[in-house]
């Protein structure tokens, strides 16, 4: 990354401009989330990848204790469509509490789905960090 302005924009995207993901996930309830999807875009896996790039950094930034796993399965064969594309919400006891199917969904739809199933509080405006 070259210019300072570009870098500031990038840092602020993590901490300030991505509004939907600025939440504090109830740490007593959840241990982490686990994403499994395909490394390639075909057969509807693009949204999952975009969700990872777009929202997960902010989610991790405001929930430093949350364990976020991303498993990407390599599958170059476009005819093989059986690769799972799921988001799992994992509890403290290592149990899968909830599961979201991310296939053929856009990144913002996945974020909304996740928000509906999680117990969270939005981060108050004054404690947001702006670089």
């Amino acid at each position, binding site marked *: 990354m070259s210019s300072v302005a570009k870098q500031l924009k990038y840092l602020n995207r*993590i901490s300030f401009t991505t509004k939907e993901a600025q939440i504090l996930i109830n740490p007593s309830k959840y241990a982490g989330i686990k994403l499994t999807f395909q490394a390639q875009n075909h057969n509807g896996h693009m949204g999952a990848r975009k969700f990872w790039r777009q929202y*997960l*950094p*902010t989610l991790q930034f405001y929930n430093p204790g949350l364990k976020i796993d991303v498993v990407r399965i390599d599958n170059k064969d476009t005819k093989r469509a059986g690769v799972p594309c799921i988001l799992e919400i994992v509890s403290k006891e290592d149990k899968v509490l909830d599961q979201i199917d991310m296939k053929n969904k856009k990144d913002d739809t996945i974020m909304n789905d996740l928000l509906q199933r999680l117990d969270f509080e939005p981060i108050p405006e004054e404690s947001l960090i702006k670089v």
Partner: protein
Amino acid sequence: MLNFSCIGRSVLRRSFLHTGNVLRAEEAAANVSKLSKDQLKKREIRRLAQRKAAAKKSPSDHPLYMSIPMALRFLRAAEVGQPQTQQTITLTTAVVAERGVPALAGSVSFPKPLKEVKIAVFSGDEDQLKVAREKFNCHLVGGTEIIEKIKSGEIPVDFDKAFATPDIAPALTSQLARILGPRGVLPTVKKGTVATDVSRLVQDSMGSMPFRQRGNAISIAVGKSSFSDRQILENAIATHDAVKEALANQVSKKTSLLGKTTLSSTHGPGIVIDFA
């Protein structure tokens, strides 16, 4: 010089009106790359002064300045979902040096090493080899027979450090200099890696990583994103001490200056930190 080219250009324009533009463009291109020696020297001095001035600025004035824990929080967020092995956190310091000053080099011993340092010991003395093998559990231990094997490629060069006793050093230099030299693992008296008592050298270097100035910067990996803030801070402090020591030991009339220091990760941004 400029005047001459102007005259030349006007003459050309008068005689070949249609080719004037092309010729002028060519001339301009030639002028950019062909600075006179004097101009080049002046430019170098100017750039050095600029870099010196930049190095003297306080890091907290920089727009990307952050405290280390905050920087780590951003870096961990930027690394989210990447494979564990690719989440290395690196500390880079700009070095401002006059021409001809030898490059900064030294070694850091980390309180929390990133990986085990592999050590090779070369010696013709069986007792020393035994100590290296049993007490320190070195990666590769031996005498002339392993020199032959490394030369033929039977044993890969996968160690990070090598030590030798004086009796075997000339053989190493003559046979393995081409293989070990470019990787920086050839034992030499000058580097202090050849001594009659190898065990002391090995003891000193356990858990330490060598570093070296490349171009105008020193770059050292200080941790993984899975390390705690405390561990990375301790490693950064160890790095700081080692770099300062290297500066103090520099054999030159003018010591180098340390400039802007950034903390970065494999996929993350570079964030300016206070390293003074």
